[in-house]
């Protein structure tokens, strides 16, 4: 059952040190800033964070990094014009980095959510990012074996939730949210508002309630 939380602090309660945290967003679009701020206050540290980017400016994921709470970043594109917090930590050797092609990041989380043990993927074949990985030729094409990425917690941003926990998103802010929601043990969503069950069109629900553990309107 999905809990409707009164505050972001309540929503992120109990995240443990050493957790793997999936954080939604593509740049700032869809980034659950209120949940990340609450996680900073909550204090969990030694985190592995899986997110497309490695923070922008000084807020959200960048702030979590700045506090030294992140042991390792798993992302596709850390380096951005405003990723100076991550850049500094990385150059000082204070954060580990695993770079994963963007589509593999998504598909590996999808595999975790879908109960797939591993999959043969054509992306990255023959590149440094596939070095050391098992490969196989299937029907004349070479594939790399990729494994699921699971989260203990997913923090995602959505647009509207109903009280059951069904979610809809807005435009390209949808990005990683629906995939991460399936891949974590505990999925926590911040939304602009929570409506009564039955107010979302069942045909247009993007993340069914089964994937959502806690929601908070911010």
């Amino acid at each position, binding site marked *: 059952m999905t809990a409707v939380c009164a505050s972001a602090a309540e929503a992120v309660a109990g995240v443990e040190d050493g957790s793997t945290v999936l954080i939604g967003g593509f740049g700032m679009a869809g980034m659950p800033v209120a949940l990340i701020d609450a996680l900073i206050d909550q204090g969990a540290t030694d985190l592995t964070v899986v997110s497309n980017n490695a923070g922008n400016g000084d807020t959200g994921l960048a702030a979590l990094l700045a506090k030294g709470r992140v042991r390792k970043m798993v992302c596709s594109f850390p380096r951005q014009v405003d990723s100076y917090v991550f850049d500094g930590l990385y150059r000082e050797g204070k954060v580990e980095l695993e770079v994963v092609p963007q589509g593999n990041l998504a598909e590996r989380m999808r595999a975790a959510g*879908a109960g797939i043990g591993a999959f043969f993927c054509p992306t990255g074949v023959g590149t440094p990012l596939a070095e050391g990985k098992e490969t196989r030729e299937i029907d004349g094409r070479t594939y790399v074996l990729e494994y699921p990425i699971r989260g203990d917690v997913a923090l995602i941003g959505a647009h509207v939730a109903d009280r059951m926990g069904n979610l809809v998103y807005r435009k390209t802010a949808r990005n990683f949210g629906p995939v991460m929601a399936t891949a974590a043990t505990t999925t926590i969503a911040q939304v602009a508002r929570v409506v009564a069950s039955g107010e979302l069109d069942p045909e247009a629900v993007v993340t069914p309630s089964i994937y959502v553990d806690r929601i908070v309107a911010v």
Partner: protein
Amino acid sequence: MSPSKALSKDEMAALVARDIPQGSYVNLGIGQPTLVADFLAPDSGVVLHTENGMLNMGPAAVGGEIDPDLTNAGKIPVTELPGASYFHHADSFAMMRGGHLDVCVLGAFQVAANGDLANWHTGAADAIPAVGGAMDLAIGAKRVFVMMTLFAKDGSPKLVPSCTYPLTGVGCVDRVYTDVATFQVGPDGAVVLETFGITFADLAARLDVPLRRAEDAAGA
């Protein structure tokens, strides 16, 4: 506490319903397991999944409610409840295979003491094999409950040391609800949880499976 006689299908369904935790996401297999829905308390918060692509399925449709585009996995017209959602088959089975359902209730031809399940094929040479979602359901849910009579029409037990029918899934069943007893099954074998109209000794005599009492198992 052992009622003095074997359970009806409805009583079995009520027993299963009793053991489904508040707020669970549940898939009820085709046939007898669909009866369980009738015994879930209105405030149970249980959400029903149907693998043809829906969450928060409502009761069977009647009269003007019947819509050929809205059926359950048994192709029976059903209704939707507030907070329902629709999704395609790959997403629906990802939901099952990914372990997101709390409970799945299935019928069975045979269950082995270790939790192996046979419920899709009698193995008869002239039978047309048809599996549907049985194998996906068997391995997907966090807990798999089986609901069946304990003995076949010919009197042979359906809780067995090892399935003789082709398997649906390996070691996947957690609990077995029958007309005369409920069992826990798994790597540690079969444990009798309750009996109905039969003594433990009589039950043990009629099955080829070593049985433990729940009290003893709990102490083990």
